[in-house]
């Protein structure tokens, strides 16, 4: 009898063959991003246009396929052209017309349309190779800047500088072999570099195409499969893509592609050679902490459930993702659904559950659809259901939809919701790990926590724990949004500073405005000012700064954001999402909101700040669940770091950012107004008076402060104060 692992390996061989035949044998492969964000940007039309073009040219060896979101949402739709032996070319913001042109020029005539590409360096596509030198912190003392310098010197000396692109990557968790570098598209990695080895690489490999076998690292890692595709782009190079390893790389709707990239090997491995307790011990040793916000050690949570004598136990994947401004879990499920299923299976095996649920927001229809397909496909292949891979172990997965209640992300509320009741939290203990769904031991893990599991099993706990900081291991995915130049999904090693995420990876503030604050943790977190930008992202440092890691929403705010308004926004959210079970949360948040409303309406009084602080601390201490306990955080952190803005609203009746409409007035500067009548025509309440070519005026009594006049005046005659 073949073991589960042997069976899986056999399946993989067949899948690789099939994927190769279907997709890779063709000399050119076109991949089009396909996710909620991509489709909103028009990816479906682009896909169809390529399809039509391919049909028109029968006999052409071109394969078209879909991949998940790669993370650069602001540049979508993204199209990648992969040709054998060449650096993949990535086109951004493609529309059907651009697709036609790409097809004509690039596919048919081999000419790269540089103007449409996503590139950092001019002339990138003349380059033959990309060298990525690992620039992680741990390697710094190993002189990796010397390595970079050595490469530069050597390629210049050899006269091949225009053919080589040199980039730097985040820590790849290979510090014991460091400094390392990758050479693409060859896919070779060299280890323990010295300036002398670099010289040899340049002379032999880069110039004469001889790989230097004696210096290569041949180990295999699940991570950074995206490197061959995106390694040349700075935005991706600065990341360590561990849970997002397949997103934007494989076709999320193809089980074969997942199998080809060692999919389901982790579950096959544990079914073959590990006891549940060994799996728990491995995860404990890895130091993995929950990515859903709390940061509770995952292995420890499993241990509680595993220790229960019950026969029936449940495993739940929390994909409720209620933080309004976060989309990590959606992207992960849309881009790589099988990884989540595999993670759920690994956890289920460890705690002794035979049934798993994915509780997912109904607002994510595409993610639900891809999960359903993934479940059906893996069941059909014997990877899910009964007697998985012939091991005798059974595990089934069912999807349950949320219905738009933020509080259902809380563990006990989520359980009630699956049970078919109102999603109200219950007091803990008993913890779900002891008595959860239908009274049985239940473990709830976040999507991203689960996505780490295959990596931990296959690449090892030691390797995993070599990444990150002392108490926060591995990586964290952030959904970068707001007023930042590069919006999208980023995954960085724990310990990376906020500044690196916002300015390095995120490209800084849009339209060169001034940075004001970065918000992490959503409605449960806080707003950190510029002084805190050097805070490393790890659970404890963010807590110490007054915010929380949260599930990964990261919203960047600029000078045009009013912090009192932001605090009010979050409180309005938590107040309307409060389930109403306990008084401090239900009534307290309402009272705080009323005060904030008063302040932004220009009616703030002396003592309001103190009242907010007092109420905040009562709600924090006396609420039953995390929603109430964290609700005051956005207000308290803005009071701490942006107290001056509150004072400006209360005492000077001014909104420094010009957001709170009650505190803003629009005026026409008579010096600049030329009487073009544009504002008068557009004002929705007709409160602007003036004859053509005469100075106009605003009737302040009627003005609703909509800002239209400011936007339409071409002469900068309208001022806001």
């Amino acid at each position, binding site marked *: 009898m073949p073991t589960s692992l042997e069976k899986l390996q056999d399946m993989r061989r067949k899948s690789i063959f099939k994927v190769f035949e279907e997709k890779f044998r063709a000399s050119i492969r076109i991949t089009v991003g396909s996710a909620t964000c991509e489709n909103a940007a028009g990816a479906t039309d682009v896909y169809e246009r390529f399809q039509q073009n391919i049909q028109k040219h029968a006999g052409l060896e071109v394969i078209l396929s879909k991949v998940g979101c790669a993370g650069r949402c602001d540049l979508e739709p993204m199209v990648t052209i992969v040709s054998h032996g060449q650096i993949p070319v990535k086109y951004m913001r493609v529309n059907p017309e651009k697709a036609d042109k790409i097809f004509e020029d690039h596919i048919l005539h081999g000419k790269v349309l540089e103007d449409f590409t996503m590139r950092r360096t001019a002339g990138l596509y003349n380059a033959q190779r990309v060298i990525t030198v690992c620039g992680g912190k741990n390697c710094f003392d190993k002189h990796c800047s010397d390595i970079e310098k050595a490469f530069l010197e050597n390629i210049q000396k050899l006269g091949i500088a225009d053919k080589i692109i040199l980039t730097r990557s985040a820590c790849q968790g290979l510090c014991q072999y460091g400094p390392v570098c990758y050479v693409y598209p060859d896919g070779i990695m060299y280890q323990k570099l010295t300036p002398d080895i670099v010289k040899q690489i340049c002379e032999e490999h880069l110039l004469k195409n001889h790989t230097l076998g004696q210096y290569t690292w041949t180990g295999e890692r699940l991570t950074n499969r995206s490197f061959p595709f995106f390694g040349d782009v700075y935005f991706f190079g600065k990341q360590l893509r561990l849970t997002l390893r397949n997103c934007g790389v494989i076709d999320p709707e193809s089980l074969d592609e997942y199998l080809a990239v060692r999919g389901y090997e982790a579950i096959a491995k544990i079914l073959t050679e590990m006891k549940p307790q060994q799996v728990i011990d491995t995860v404990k040793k890895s130091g993995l902490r929950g990515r859903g916000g709390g940061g509770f050690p995952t292995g420890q949570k499993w241990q509680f459930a595993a220790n229960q004598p019950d026969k029936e136990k449940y495993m739940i994947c929390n994909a409720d993702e*209620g933080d309004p*401004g976060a989309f990590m879990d959606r992207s992960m499920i849309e881009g790589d659904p099988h990884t989540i299923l595999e993670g759920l299976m690994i956890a289920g095996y460890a705690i002794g559950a035979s049934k798993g649920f994915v509780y997912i927001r*109904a607002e994510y229809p595409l993610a639900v659809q891809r999960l359903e397909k993934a479940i059906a496909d893996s069941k059909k292949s014997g990877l899910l259901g009964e007697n998985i891979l012939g091991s005798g172990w059974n595990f089934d997965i069912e999807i349950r939809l949320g*219905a738009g209640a933020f509080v259902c992300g809380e563990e006990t509320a989520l359980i009630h919701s699956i049970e078919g009741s109102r999603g109200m939290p219950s007091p803990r203990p008993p913890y779900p790990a002891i008595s959860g769904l239908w009274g049985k031991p239940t473990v709830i893990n976040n999507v991203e926590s689960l996505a780490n599991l295959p990596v931990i099993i296959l690449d090892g706990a030691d390797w995993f724990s070599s990444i990150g900081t002392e108490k926060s291991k591995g990586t964290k995915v952030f959904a970068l*949004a707001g007023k930042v130049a590069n919006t999208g999904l980023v995954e960085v090693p724990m310990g990376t500073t906020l500044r690196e995420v916002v300015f390095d990876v995120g490209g800084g503030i849009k339209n060169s405005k001034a940075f004001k604050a970065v918000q992490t943790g959503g409605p449960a977190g806080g707003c950190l000012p510029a002084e805190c930008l050097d805070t490393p992202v790890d659970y404890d440092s963010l807590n110490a700064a007054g915010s929380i890691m949260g599930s990964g929403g990261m919203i960047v705010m600029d000078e045009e954001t009013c912090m009192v308004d932001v605090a009010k926004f979050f409180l309005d959210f938590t107040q309307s999402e409060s389930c109403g079970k306990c008084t401090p949360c239900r009534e307290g948040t309402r009272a705080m909101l009323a005060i904030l409303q008063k302040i932004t309406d220009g009616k703030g009084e002396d003592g309001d700040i103190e009242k907010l602080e007092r109420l905040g601390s009562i709600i924090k201490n006396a609420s039953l669940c995390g929603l109430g306990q964290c609700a005051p955080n956005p207000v308290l952190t803005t009071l701490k770091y942006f107290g001056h803005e509150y004072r400006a609203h209360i005492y000077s009746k001014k909104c420094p950012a010009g957001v709170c409409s009650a505190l803003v007035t629009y005026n026409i500067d008579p010096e600049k107004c030329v009487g073009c009548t544009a504002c008068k025509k557009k004002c929705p309440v007709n409160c602007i008076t003036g004859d053509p070519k005469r100075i106009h005026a605003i009737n302040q009594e009627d003005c609703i402060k909509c800002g239209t006049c400011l936007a339409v005046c071409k002469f900068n005659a309208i001022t806001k104060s």
Partner: protein
Amino acid sequence: MEKDEKNMTCCCSCSSPNALPQEIVAYIHECMQKPHSESYLIPVLHKIQNHFGYLSPVYLEEVAQLMHIPASKITGVATFYHLFSFTPRGKNRISVCLGTACYVKGSGKLMERFKEKLGIKENETTPDGMFSIECSRCFGACALAPVVVVNDKVYGDVKPEQVEKILADYGFKK
């Protein structure tokens, strides 16, 4: 299933007319065969809402009988979750995202603009039944903020000036 079966009485012992379409009734019966059948209440409500666009008391009554769950509990559950609506919504449903990323990028102004153009408030429907507006909390497309969803189509990076154009796409005439 035969078409005229739709109007037959319910197949369980109750005598209520079958207001629910056959496929939903069949789904409920399927759920009733599974362990913890009452846990399928929310999936059933989703199916009804997807079919009719809202939950009318008549259907809830029928669900109560078919699933053997007290009607009061069903109402309690249905009212708890924001996605369930008890009034018919417009033919075109406009959802303006008021999640953090969209709010920071000015979706509040978009909401105002839609309300002003259509002359209705949040969660209301225009008298001709063509449009309704609601706010939502994040579609997970935050990188494209501000986001507006009309029916199933996602519009990203929407500017206030585009509001009229979007409405016009769905036949709105001022």
